[in-house]
């Protein structure tokens, strides 16, 4: 029972990181039906920015804030420079450009910092918390990870739901033609979507890197898990992305915990298995309202 609680809590903590990546993918997918393969690479790059700022200033929080700002800017700049020219062209063009962007960012990071693994600090202690004498399997930092993503998600949800800017983004995502005819500058809205995605990706990078170490490919596996979470949630739904991330995190935590010493090596397989099962039975995600249409 104690084990179960530990696995669940640590699963939630990791799941929130997958949720953040999933959320950033959903933000871009909703606006343009484009899967941003560079999302993990962008998060890796902004984490290097945080690493550099922390090294120069000695302040974790300076690095944290600068990384988020860098994610915002990187998302907007990437959209304006290389993605916007592909609007209205075949969808594959944009997909290939995001892959190119990923290779570019990983190459740049390698040129500047080399390929070695670097440790990345945490904001809070990573010593496991205890309830009385029972270890909970999570640390203060894990709690911070979960809360940071949760707060960001709630802020986004409230912003989308209750502000004019949020309504503008939803309208542009659901029906770009109606949005344009109503005066919404959809191209600008898409740039804002990329900027927000960059910010959330940067948050995920800073939160997960203490456990993965920092190197040019450090976000690759996290990206795959985030993508899986997004598909579980249906790619269209921000709430689905978060729930998908949590489900995946907990499932992988159980797999790693209960399947013995080999369990942690099986996480990629378990994630792939979940992805296949979801795509077979609920291709629109398990939270999609619409019934699957069989042709």
């Amino acid at each position: 029972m104690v084990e179960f609680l530990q696995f669940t809590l640590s699963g939630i903590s990791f799941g929130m990181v997958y949720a953040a990546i999933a959320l950033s993918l959903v933000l871009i997918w909703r606006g343009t039906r484009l899967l941003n393969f560079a999302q993990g690479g962008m998060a890796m790059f902004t984490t290097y920015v945080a690493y550099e700022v922390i090294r120069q200033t000695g302040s974790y929080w300076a690095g944290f804030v600068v990384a988020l700002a860098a994610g915002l800017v990187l998302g907007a700049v990437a959209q304006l420079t290389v993605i916007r020219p592909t609007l209205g062209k075949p969808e594959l063009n944009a997909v290939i450009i995001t892959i190119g962007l990923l290779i570019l960012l990983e190459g740049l990071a390698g040129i500047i910092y080399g390929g070695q693994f670097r440790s990345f600090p945490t904001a809070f202690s990573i010593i496991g918390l205890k309830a009385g004498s029972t270890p909970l399997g999570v640390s203060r930092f894990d709690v911070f990870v979960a809360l940071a993503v949760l707060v960001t998600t709630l802020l986004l949800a409230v912003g989308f739901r209750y502000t004019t800017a949020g309504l503008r983004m939803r309208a542009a995502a659901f029906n770009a033609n109606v949005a344009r005819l109503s005066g919404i500058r959809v191209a600008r809205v898409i740039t804002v979507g990329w900027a927000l995605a960059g910010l959330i990706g940067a948050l995920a990078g800073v939160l997960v890197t203490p456990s993965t170490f920092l190197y040019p490919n450090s976000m690759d596996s996290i990206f795959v898990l985030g993508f899986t979470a997004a598909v579980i949630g249906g790619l269209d739904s921000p709430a689905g992305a978060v729930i998908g991330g949590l489900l995946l995190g907990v499932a992988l935590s159980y797999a790693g915990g209960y399947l013995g010493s080999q369990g942690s090596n099986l996480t990629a397989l378990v994630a792939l298995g979940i992805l296949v099962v979801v795509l077979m039975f609920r291709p629109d995600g398990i939270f999609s309202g619409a019934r699957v249409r069989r042709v």
Partner: protein
Amino acid sequence: MSSPAANQGDAEQEGREQEGREQEGREQEGAGRKSAAASLVVEDLVAGYGGVLALDKVTITAEAGTITAVLGANGAGKTTLLRAVSGMVRPRGGRVLLDGTNRAGRGPEDLVRAGIAHVPEGQGVIAELTVEENLRIGMMSWPGLAPRRADRAAALAEQYERFAVLADRRRKLAGTLSGGERQMLVIARALVSRPRVLLLDEPSLGLAPRIMTQVMDMVVRLSRENGITIVLVEQNARAALAIADRGVVLNLGRVVASAEAQTLASDVALRHHYLGF
């Protein structure tokens, strides 16, 4: 184009005479609202998709505050005309004059700010948003960064008064509305943007006859009471000519007839050839 109306039924003739009287009344009433209304002149407009030319030097004049019916068979270029005027399709040539200012080549985001609202065919509500959110989208073209709360509330109240059925459903998702309610909602959304020219594409498409009559009545009211210049694309030529001041018939991207609505309606040869009634 001037065939005698000798073979028309009495009832139809009577209806037309009544229509004529109402038009006179409108001209007098419209004089006091001149500032709000705008004329729309389309000059030698050329537009197409790829290698296909959908509009070949189309010229149309819609006087301020009037209803102009654009008629013709499928593929005549009616929808493309509206899309080119609203900026959804970039014209390849010609001018779109709103109160004398050429607006051709601008995008729809700019044209709706200039006062041209386009209601595309197919009851294009955003199904995933509530009725009220759909209406609020009509405010996105308002000038200024943050419109006053009171102005926003007044704009919504005005449409809820006009369309009581929307007021009852304001918190419902637009996807749950019936076809007629959706058509009301898209027109209301366009009106929230405070248009001077309203482009309506097949507003009666797929609606029950009773609902269609309601929509047509409302188009007339918008022109008479609000002084909005209306360009109405319709498959149902008879219904459109019954409420229009002028009619324009397109065929294969060219204007083949342009006259007073009554004149077109009484031109038997034209009706048989192009309008199917």
